[in-house]
């Protein structure tokens, strides 16, 4: 391939494993309608439920909202210092580490690594308890998802890792291809950092680097937030920078709306993280000299060009 440099991938773990970590939601892995007690129940009731069901932790629910959690330690403390007729509210821990049902299970894996607890309560956006999740639930959900993914893996992997020769111009100075995974917020921005580094090393003008960073970052975040995963291709040409993203779906239903400032289809959880403000594609278009987008249910492709020439002549 002549002038094509080595391909650089963001993450070298097996695609199928990463895919399931970032695409399966906590909701799909958790145990719904878990056993629970009310704050005014007695410690005896709580102890019996835990004993009969082999549980080491029991959520405490007030109405529909999660009020706290009761552990075996709390039962022991009650044996030592109180009476089993005491109310649960006296012993429960109110400082509960919890997961939200819309989070990808990468968050749950992270929590199991970070905290010593063996189970976490799961809440919905109204802060109501909807489930409990254990490490065993996580493994089961992941295996299930990996099985499904494997069936379509071969085809998809081929499409993502083989660069299309038509994409590579003969005068390409640098060519890089990066795979970006759905919901991989951990690594979001790393592709753009890599591109920024390349441009800095080449002594590209600061104002151009900023425009490329804005476009690359928004396109990268779009792959993370909206696509089922995809690839970002970066090319440095003698006179311009080209970026192309190609994803595996699900496609943009209304392109005109997607290009409108403020229009967004992001979920509430994604918005709470500061994304999904409906500024992504409009920002990309604004900093690009050339912008092309096409989309159908098999995926979306965005191609942009930023000229290296004199900025004054260019539309911004």
């Amino acid at each position: 391939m002549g002038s094509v440099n080595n391909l650089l991938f963001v993450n070298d773990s097996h695609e199928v494993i990463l895919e399931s970590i970032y695409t399966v939601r906590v909701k799909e892995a958790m145990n719904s309608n878990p056993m629970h007690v009310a704050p005014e129940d007695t410690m005896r009731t709580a102890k019996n439920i835990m004993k009969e069901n082999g549980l080491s932790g029991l959520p405490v629910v007030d109405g529909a909202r999660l009020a706290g959690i009761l552990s075996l330690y709390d039962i022991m403390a009650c044996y030592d210092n109180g009476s089993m007729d005491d109310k649960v509210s006296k012993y429960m821990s109110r400082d509960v580490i919890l997961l939200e049902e819309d989070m990808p299970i990468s968050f749950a894996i992270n929590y199991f690594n970070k905290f010593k607890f063996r189970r976490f309560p799961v809440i919905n956006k109204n802060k109501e308890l909807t489930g409990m999740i254990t490490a065993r639930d996580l493994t089961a959900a992941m295996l299930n998802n990996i099985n499904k993914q494997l069936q379509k893996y071969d085809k998809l992997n081929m499409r993502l890792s083989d660069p299309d020769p038509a994409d590579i111009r003969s005068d390409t100075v640098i060519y890089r291809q990066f795979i970006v995974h759905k919901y991989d917020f951990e690594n979001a921005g790393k592709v753009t950092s890599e591109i920024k580094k390349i441009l800095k090393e080449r002594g590209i003008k600061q104002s151009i680097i900023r425009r490329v960073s804005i476009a690359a970052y928004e396109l990268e975040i779009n792959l993370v937030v909206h696509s089922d995963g995809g690839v970002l291709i970066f090319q440095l040409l003698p006179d311009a920078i080209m970026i192309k993203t190609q994803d595996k779906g699900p496609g943009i239903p209304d392109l005109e709306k997607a290009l409108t400032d403020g229009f967004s289809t992001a979920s509430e959880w994604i918005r709470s993280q500061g994304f999904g403000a409906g500024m992504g594609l409009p920002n990309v278009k604004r900093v690009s000299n050339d912008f092309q987008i096409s989309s159908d249910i098999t995926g979306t492709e965005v191609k942009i060009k930023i000229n290296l020439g004199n900025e004054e002549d260019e539309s911004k």
Partner: protein
Amino acid sequence: MKVSDLEALGYTRETKKEMEDYEIKAGYTGDLLSDVMANAPSDSVLITIQAHKNTIAVATLAGIRAILVCNKRAIPSDMIEAAEDNDVALFKTAETQFEASAKVAKMMG
């Protein structure tokens, strides 16, 4: 003003690593990462409530030197780590973004 002047304003430094005490020439207040990415000036301080790792990614890309997390938002440890790795100074305060912006702007003159 310098990054260290944020401490003089009473803000708690969360990053413990020794970093260069950069000159801060501007400030930007915002919680939408796309907005920060598109509009925050370089060599600036970002005043925000977005206390997570992705804010550091945006700061690094936009050339932001310091981040001030407002409203007593809890700062996760992976955010502090990412800030130290990328030489972005991280501060926290109980003040709102409005109060903090006013103070920082006043100091910048």
